[in-house]
Every structure is written in structure tokens, then in C-alpha cells.
């Protein structure tokens, strides 16, 4: 234990207000939430009778939650690669030192600045299919007009598609963010490495494959973690775009949690859903934190 000298005391004193507040308002509340999930609190006024794992059993047996888990899994598995690939594509294109680079950079990044609710409403209109009687709307209308009418479908109104339509809106919003991260990473790869590869006879494609992409791995990893966290928490976009959807085909755990807690006043069930979501995200983030802290120790 190092000596408690003035420096150390000052450091502790400066950090302690934030630490105490975070301990109470973040971790304390998470703990309370976990506690509530083991109780029988299912009305507006609290009832802390202990019921053990009953809420969790009921949750996993409920049809809606099973559909939600499948939906969030589909969403995550489609959203993350889509954002990474598109983000990398934009970043590589912009990195070619095109004219008006900052203009394109801004355009790709703007969607992230738009509120999720606005994104949801706009994409609700864009992907509204219309009917035979009223004519097509939105994207269907566009496809019709450019002659690709066979690609028309029900988008989020079709239970088979459901959450995959929401992935389109979410990718539109977040691929700019991934692009920004990759652009920073690309700029960080020194030109000498590429020169060296060229001298060794590598084609441009091989340079990307063997030099650039491996060096971008840390960025891919952190982007994956952040996008994963966004995916599991997605709420505002789904609420404003599709609601729970026909047969819950666009329902996600956060929407179920909101519904059951604030409309159904079933606080213990909401707490259980929130705890499960926290466990999912922890499963994503904690290994990453351990990995990076190991790296720092080694460095």
C-alpha cells in the first residue's frame, strides 16, 4: 500500500464525490432493481414480498419474451455486421482523398445527430407499404417507379420480416458513426507501412487485406461492443417506428419492459427484464474491459 501522502489524499478527495454519487445512483439503483426483480411488486404501490426466481421463470415461459429474445438476437446479428461493413466502406472511400471529403464525411455522420424518434417516424413513413386500394407509399412507391416493383413487400407490417426492417433504419443511423471510427483508424496507419507493402509487390487489395484490416482490429472490436450495447438497448427507434408489431414481430425486450412496467404496473417483471438485458450487455462489455485492461498492463 503506497503511502497516504498529500497527492494521494487530494486525488481521493477529488474523485470521491463522483464515486459516491455513481455508487448510489448507478450501482445502488441497479442493485435495487435486481432486488425488485425477486419480489412480488406488481402494482403501483410497492410490495417487497420475496418470490425468488418466479418472475424469471414466468418471463422465459412467456411467448412475448421468447419472441423478443429472438428479435433482439436477429437485430444484433444483422445490425452490427451491416454497420461495420458499411462504415468501413464509407471510410475507405473517403480515405481516398476525394474532393469535398469533409462534405461527404458530414453527410454520412448527420443521421447520428438526428433523434431516434425522428428517425423512427421518418422510416415508418418510408417503409409504410400502402395497399392495393390506396396505392403504394414510400420505398415501395419508389421501387415501383424505377421498375423494381417485384421487390415490393410489407416491410415491418409483414410478420416474417418484422425487426429486419428496423435494422435498415438503425443501420442508416449508426453506420456514419462506425465510419468516423474507421476513418480515424485509417488515418492512424502510417503511409510507410503501405509503401513497404507496395515495394514487396502487394496489390492495393492485398494491402487492405493484409495490412490495413488487421491494424483496424482494435477499432472493429470497440465498435462491435458499442454497437452491441446500442442494439440490445434499442427502444426509441422501435417505439416510434413500429411499436410491438403484428404478433410482436418487431417487439424488443426494452419495449416489453416499458409496457409491463408503466402500462401494466408490473414492476417486478419489468425489473426482471431489465436485469436480463443488463446481463446480456455485461456479457458483451465485461470481457472487453478485461481484455483491454490486460493489454494496458502488458504495454
Amino acid at each position, binding site marked *: 500500500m503506497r503511502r497516504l501522502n498529500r497527492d494521494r489524499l*487530494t486525488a481521493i478527495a*477529488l474523485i470521491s464525490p463522483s464515486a459516491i454519487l455513481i455508487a448510489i445512483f448507478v450501482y445502488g439503483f441497479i442493485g435495487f432493481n435486481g432486488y425488485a426483480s425477486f419480489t412480488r411488486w406488481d402494482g403501483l*404501490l410497492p410490495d417487497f414480498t420475496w418470490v425468488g426466481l418466479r418472475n424469471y421463470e414466468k418471463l422465459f415461459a412467456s411467448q412475448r419474451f421468447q419472441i423478443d429474445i429472438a428479435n433482439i438476437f436477429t437485430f444484433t446479428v444483422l445490425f452490427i455486421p451491416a454497420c461495420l461493413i458499411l462504415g468501413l466502406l464509407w471510410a475507405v472511400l473517403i480515405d481516398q482523398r476525394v474532393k469535398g471529403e469533409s462534405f461527404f464525411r458530414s453527410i454520412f455522420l448527420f443521421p447520428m445527430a438526428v433523434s431516434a424518434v425522428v428517425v423512427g417516424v421518418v422510416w415508418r413513413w418510408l417503409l*409504410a407499404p400502402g*395497399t392495393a386500394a390506396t396505392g403504394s407509399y414510400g420505398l415501395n412507391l419508389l421501387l415501383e417507379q424505377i421498375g423494381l416493383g417485384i421487390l415490393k413487400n410489407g416491410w415491418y407490417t409483414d410478420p416474417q420480416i418484422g425487426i429486419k426492417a428496423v435494422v435498415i433504419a438503425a443501420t442508416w443511423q449508426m453506420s456514419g458513426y462506425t465510419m468516423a471510427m474507421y476513418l480515424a483508424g485509417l488515418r492512424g496507419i502510417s503511409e510507410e507501412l503501405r509503401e513497404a507493402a507496395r515495394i514487396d509487390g502487394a496489390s492495393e487489395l492485398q494491402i487492405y487485406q493484409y495490412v490495413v484490416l488487421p491494424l483496424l482490429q482494435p477499432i472493429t472490436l470497440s465498435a462491435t461492443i458499442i454497437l452491441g450495447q446500442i442494439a440490445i438497448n434499442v*427502444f426509441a427507434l422501435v417505439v416510434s417506428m413500429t411499436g410491438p*408489431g403484428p*404478433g410482436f414481430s418487431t417487439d424488443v425486450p426494452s419495449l416489453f419492459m416499458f409496457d409491463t412496467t408503466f*402500462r401494466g404496473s408490473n414492476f417486478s417483471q419489468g425489473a426482471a427484464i431489465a436485469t436480463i438485458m443488463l446481463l446480456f450487455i455485461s456479457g458483451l462489455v465485461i470481457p472487453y474491459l478485461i481484455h483491454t485492461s490486460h493489454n494496458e498492463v502488458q504495454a
Partner: protein
Amino acid sequence: MNKSLMTLISLATIGAFVLTACGGAATTAAPAATSAPAATSAPAATAAPAGEAKFEFFSWWTAGGEAEGLNGMYKVYKAQRPNVEIINATVAGGAGTNAKAVLATRLAGGDPPDAFQVHAGLEILAYSPDQYLQPLDDLYAAQGWDKSFPKDLLTLLKYNGHYWSVPVNIHRGNVLWYNKKIFADNNLTPPKTFDDFFKVADTLKAKGITPYAFGNNGGWEDAFTFESVLLGTLGADGYRGLWTGATPWTDPRVAKALENYKKMSSYANADHAALSWDGAAQLIVDGKAAMFIHGDWANGYFSSKSFTGYGWAPAPGTGGIFHVVSDSFAMPKGIKNPKNAKAWLEVAGSKAGQEAFNPKKGSICARTDCDMAAFNDYLKSSATDFAGNALVPGTDAAANPKWITAYKDVIVIFASKGDVAAAQAGLQQVCKDAGICK
């Protein structure tokens, strides 16, 4: 010198934080119990002086006709008590989802508003009436309200033998709206039974007109419309029994209702998942669909679009039955301004108060003796029905919120999968979970 200064500043900062925690908790800023997304406007009341100078009313009527109606009632109150400062504590958020959470926090935390808005009926259970609310039997007796409100409504309002809230307005849930032009062009009359409905729908479908407008983007519309189908298939007593345990959900009539709903939905516009209820109402306005079964806030929507080409009838099978959705005002125990609150409830239940409130809100008075001159044609006809029909409570009056949400989820899945047996089993199960069915 630098280090001592730093230490001093840090200690002062910590001290400031500690002081704010211990400092007077005078403001009634209601902390959202969990992170509710919509902004809450914290009521501004601070410790009121002795001798009641204020009155705080808590509701979720923040916009449109609702807010106008509330202001109309405030005017009536102000005329009677000009020296009282009215604190209009509102929390935005559809159907009061955020407001209810804030209200529960305040009631449990010992800082109740003087009066608050609540749906008439069993929604009062959410606030533990025996524990937190004042029974209003004396008020009802003093004001002679047993003569002003219909008998069925009074029955609906009672819990544990007492009255807990004063009903202010009445909306009807089981209305069939139709586009008059489409019906006239095709020589159709509004269907009275489900068989009539299917005949009319088939005729329209053959002509390429969407028979039935529907929008369920919000996730609640299926369960709400299904209530009208249950009502039309089981009748008033059978329907009431579903929520009291007298009618089991495994009854064959419930299966028939599910079949009816399934068939009815087959006539709906294919993109209903993209529309919310007002999008469906817009189809009627635009003449793109013929019929729409929904509550009478659709009437408010049509008026706001200056559309008059609509007709109305009771939803199929529900002639003579009135599905009541009613807002009412309740008074908690231990409030700061009891006299002002009592005066407010008197205004709320009075002819003048209800006449000031309802035309703007687009609903009818809970009283049967309001002057109908200020109301539009639909509301006039609705008031006549209200005075004479059998009144049944909607889900929010008949069941607790947990049951309503679970019931809604079963219907959402049924609307998509169409499995009648599974839906019926699910409905019976959620009734058991609610402790009503055996």
C-alpha cells in the same frame, strides 16, 4: 500552497454535496421512480401557508381539447373561489403512463396532490384506496348525485361499498363509424349484427373498396377493438362476468367472439401495422375505407379535420349497450388544501362544471341533465344512449393494469396467429394469474 488550496476546494465540494443531501426537502419535485422517457413537468408547489390559498390538481391533460376542457372547468372554479391559486400539475405522456407512476410515488411518499385524474372504476385499485384515498360517500349524498348519474355508472364507481371518485366525462368505446358517401353509393345500411357486418363487407370487397379501416401500430388497438367484439358476442351481462369471474374465458361464446374478430380483421386494410388509430380514421375521412370500429375520440378526430360525412351506429351486436370509458377525479388523504379540493370535486360533479368541460373535450357529461346545445350531433345521440343503455366498464375500469396488459398481449399474438384455442387458453390463464378466475 497549491496543494492546500486543492485540498480545501475538494473538501468544500464534498461538503456542498453532503449539504444538498441533508438540506430541506421543500420542493415537491416528483422523482420519476424509474427512468420514464417523457419529460415530467414537476409540480411547482412549495410549502403552502396555513389557511388554504392553493389547490393542486394532477392530471395528464396537457394538450388539445383535453387541456381546453380542463381550463374551462378551472374558470368555473375560479368564479366560485377567486382567491385560490390553482396549480395545474400535469405530466405528459399518452394515456397517463408517466403520470400514474409519478402519482403513485407521491402517494406513497406522503406528498399527495389535492386531487387527481383517474379512470372511473377499478383503476382506483392501483392507488390502494383504503390506504391513500378519501371515500366520497358524504359528498355524493350532500350533492344528491345518486339522481344525477345513471345507476349503472354509480355501480361501476363503487369499490368496497364506497365511492372514491367523481366522474366527469364519458367516452364510448363501442362505436361503428362509417363513411356516409360510400354507404349511400352502395345502398348499404349500418350493420346491426356480425352477420350483417360480414355481408356488407363482402359487398364492398367485391367492389374493390376496403371494408374495414384498422390501424394497430400502437400495439393496443387489437385488444381494444376486441372488447367491442366480446361485448357484441356475449352481451352486457356475459361481458361483465368475464371480469368478475362469473363468465369463464373458456366459454364457447368467447371462442365465437375470437372467430368473429378473426373474420372481421380479414376485411381490414393490409397495411394496418403501419397506421395508428388516427391513420385508420384518416382512411374514413379520405373515403378510402368504409367502416371503423373505435372509441368516440374518433369523433374528435373527424371534427379536427372538419369532416362531416361520417355516420355512427353501435358496434355490431352491441345495440343498447354502452361501453363506458370515463375520467374521474379522486381526493387523497392527508392533503394540504382539503376545503379547496372538496370545492373542486363539487364543481367537477356539477352541471356547470361538466358543461364547461365536455364540449371542448369531445365527450359527454357523466351527468344526465347537461344542456346539450353546445354539443355536436354525435355527442347528442351518445348522451341519449348513455341515459338509457346498459353501461358496461371497459378493461381499464373492470380489471387491474397487470391483467389488462397480459390480456392485450394474448390478443396481439392471436391477431397475428389466428389460433382460437391457444388464445382462449391464454385468456383463461391471464384471468387466473389475476386471481379472478379459478
